[in-house]
């Protein structure tokens, strides 16, 4: 075996024709890192290909004056705005919501808020409970041990006893302070008689997993300059690398290869200069999330799999769910220091999470309070409720909002429609000339009604908490990065892409471990569930390694 361990760029890749890794992983984000860490710990040689590169906390701008400016380009969540060579563009002319993502070691965890809610038990049983969509082939109870383990592996700060969930293990760290604005919101929720709870975040409240305790910059979603947020480049990859993993950066996978028996044999990837490389492996794991995974499987069409790899069901790329996320902003007379983090969530509510069909719609939503940002974010909030101002009026608007406001973000459930999908675009390509994904997503009338209901209730809550004014955003800017459902799991190969452990029905040594496998969307930030599913899949791979069919 000549494959070098450790992390290096694709142009340095060398391997002999006879080299074969135990497991090839595509994507170094939350799910890929979770699998890599677990398998490496169990002695398997993992090679991970990541099209992005490492990002050092010192590169983040959150504690510099130009922070808000940096979001206009380099640190935007939208790959079409960021336009880095390692990004792939998304064709979104037929998308009501443009997906956001990040391509780097850490993937979406570079840009997420570290929000760490679990799905509710009912999320796995919507068909049985309400006749909606489909049940998952697994239950909340089956996932529970993996949720618990990930709370430790990522470093969750939370308060036990939340009545929105069944009893669960105590997180390894206490919840962060809810701050002045969180208390204000909680008082309003108590007046309404509605549920709220200090919210869980994978943001360090003490030194843990290589993370440094949070100092509340409140910029989590643009990368934590203090190294406090559990992005997996900090929490997982160093451990996987110590255990012998290989992580190749700036490696863009073009195709997953198969043999004459229909088993995956590895992948072809391109380095930044366009040179082609090949890596062979016994097992291939795709961890590129709901857009990237569907794109790669469709790009991997072959004579044997003409509709795309693992796509005999025709469902690869279909049933895309994005969790439409509206937001209301409360503006208060009191000074609340509401730029203080984490951001992150400080209070959440599951009062209207469960389906109640008497409301005229199905599914529900979760609410989270967040800090409202700096001067430019304040000006944006003011402009949303009126005209863009200049001069002294602009400064007055900023004074009114800055430190006096809070965001109440509403993550809503999303029905899986086969018409909402990821395809390959015929014209648009990435910097390697590979087809870009075309996103076709129409927000349905159920979402419209669900959003209207939740925004009305959220306004009531904010006014009850003393807000003088509430500003509506029917869609939160640059949100969400929830890319779900495009390779769903299930027991029936005719109606699902992977089985209950993420193994492809069509290709028995191909696993999918990211948000693609979701059967329904839930109505929370999905990363803790993605990571729990990934850990469960990795555990299964270890347990069943002796039975695993591999290429000859």
């Amino acid at each position: 075996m000549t494959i070098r361990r450790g992390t290096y760029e694709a142009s340095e890749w060398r391997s002999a024709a006879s080299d074969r890794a135990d497991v090839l992983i595509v994507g170094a984000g939350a799910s890929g890192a979770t699998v890599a860490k677990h398998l490496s710990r169990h002695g398997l040689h993992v090679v991970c290909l990541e099209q992005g590169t490492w990002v050092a906390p010192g590169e983040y701008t959150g504690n510099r004056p130009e922070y808000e400016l940096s979001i206009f380009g380099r640190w935007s969540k939208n790959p079409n705005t960021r336009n880095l060579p390692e990004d792939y563009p998304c064709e979104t002319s037929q998308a009501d919501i443009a997906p956001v993502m990040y391509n780097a070691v850490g993937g979406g965890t570079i840009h997420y808020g570290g929000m760490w809610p679990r799905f509710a038990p009912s999320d796995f049983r919507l068909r049985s409970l309400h006749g909606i969509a489909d049940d998952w082939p697994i239950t909340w109870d089956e996932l529970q041990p993996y949720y618990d383990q990930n709370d430790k592996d990522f470093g969750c700060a939370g308060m036990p006893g939340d009545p929105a969930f069944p009893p669960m293990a105590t997180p390894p760290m206490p919840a962060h302070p809810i701050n002045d604005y969180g208390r204000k919101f909680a008082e309003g929720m108590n007046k309404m008689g509605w549920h709220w709870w200090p919210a869980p975040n994978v943001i360090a409240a003490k030194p843990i997993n290589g993370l440094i305790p949070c100092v509340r910059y409140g910029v989590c979603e643009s990368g934590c300059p203090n190294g406090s947020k559990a992005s997996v480049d900090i929490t997982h990859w160093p451990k996987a690398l110590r255990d012998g993993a290989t992580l190749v950066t700036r490696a863009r996978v073009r195709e997953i290869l198969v043999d004459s028996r229909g088993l995956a044999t590895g992948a072809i990837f391109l380095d930044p200069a366009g040179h082609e490389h090949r890596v062979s492996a016994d097992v291939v794991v795709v961890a590129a999330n709901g857009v990237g995974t569907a794109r790669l499987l469709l790009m991997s069409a072959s004579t044997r799999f003409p509709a795309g790899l693992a796509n005999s069901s025709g469902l690869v790329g279909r049933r895309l769910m994005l969790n439409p996320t509206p937001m209301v902003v409360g503006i208060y007379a009191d000074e609340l220091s509401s730029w203080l983090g984490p951001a992150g969530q400080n209070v959440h509510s599951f009062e209207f999470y469960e389906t109640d069909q008497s409301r005229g719609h199905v599914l529900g939503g979760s609410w989270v309070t967040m800090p409202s940002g700096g001067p430019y974010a304040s000006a944006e909030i003011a402009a949303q409720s009126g005209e863009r101002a200049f001069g002294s009026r602009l400064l007055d608007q900023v004074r009114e909002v800055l430190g006096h406001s809070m965001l109440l973000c509403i993550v809503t459930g999303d029905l899986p429609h086969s018409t909402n999908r990821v395809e390959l675009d015929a014209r648009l390509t990435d910097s390697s000339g590979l087809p870009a994904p075309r996103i076709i997503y129409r927000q349905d009338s159920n979402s419209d009604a669900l959003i209207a209901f939740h925004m009305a209730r959220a306004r009531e809550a904010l006014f009850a908490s003393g807000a003088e004014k509430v500003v509506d955003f029917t869609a939160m800017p640059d949100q969400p990065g929830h890319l779900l459902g495009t390779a769903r799991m299930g027991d029936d190969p005719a109606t699902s892409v992977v089985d209950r452990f993420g193994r492809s029905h069509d290709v028995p040594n191909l696993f999918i471990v990211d948000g693609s496998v979701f059967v329904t969307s839930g109505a929370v930030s999905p990363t803790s569930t993605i990571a729990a599913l990934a850990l469960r899949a990795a555990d299964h791979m270890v347990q069943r390694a002796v039975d695993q069919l591999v290429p000859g």
Partner: protein
Amino acid sequence: MPTEPALTPERAELLRACGSLMMPAEDGAPGFTEVDADGQMLAAAAVYAGPRLAHIAAAIESMPGSGLSERLDAFRREQPALYNYLQEILICCYLSTSKVWELVGYTGRRPRPPAPGEAEEWLASGLLDPVRKRGPIYRSPAPGSGR
């Protein structure tokens, strides 16, 4: 193959002048060039926005008109999305300067680690009691049970 336009000092100056037109000193509020006197914030914007600002400056240069004000008006009519992008990034430059922070009472992002006991303090006076008293609200997966 076309080359990317560069943000030359002349084009940077043009964008700065656009900032002045959009945000002149008025009603006691300082103008754009006053708050970003050394051009550092605009330079930072150029770094983070990549080639976009150079494209915009080149497009404004190519607009018809006898002066910058007329060319900027023409740019707004012909390229409203890019005009809006320019306007927002210039407003963001303006609001990111220390002079404006002083005027709006913003100290910037500084480390504010929680004090010992602070998390408990915000929950004092039984804030969570009504939530606990109400009990579980999740729906059991078994039909007919739970909430």
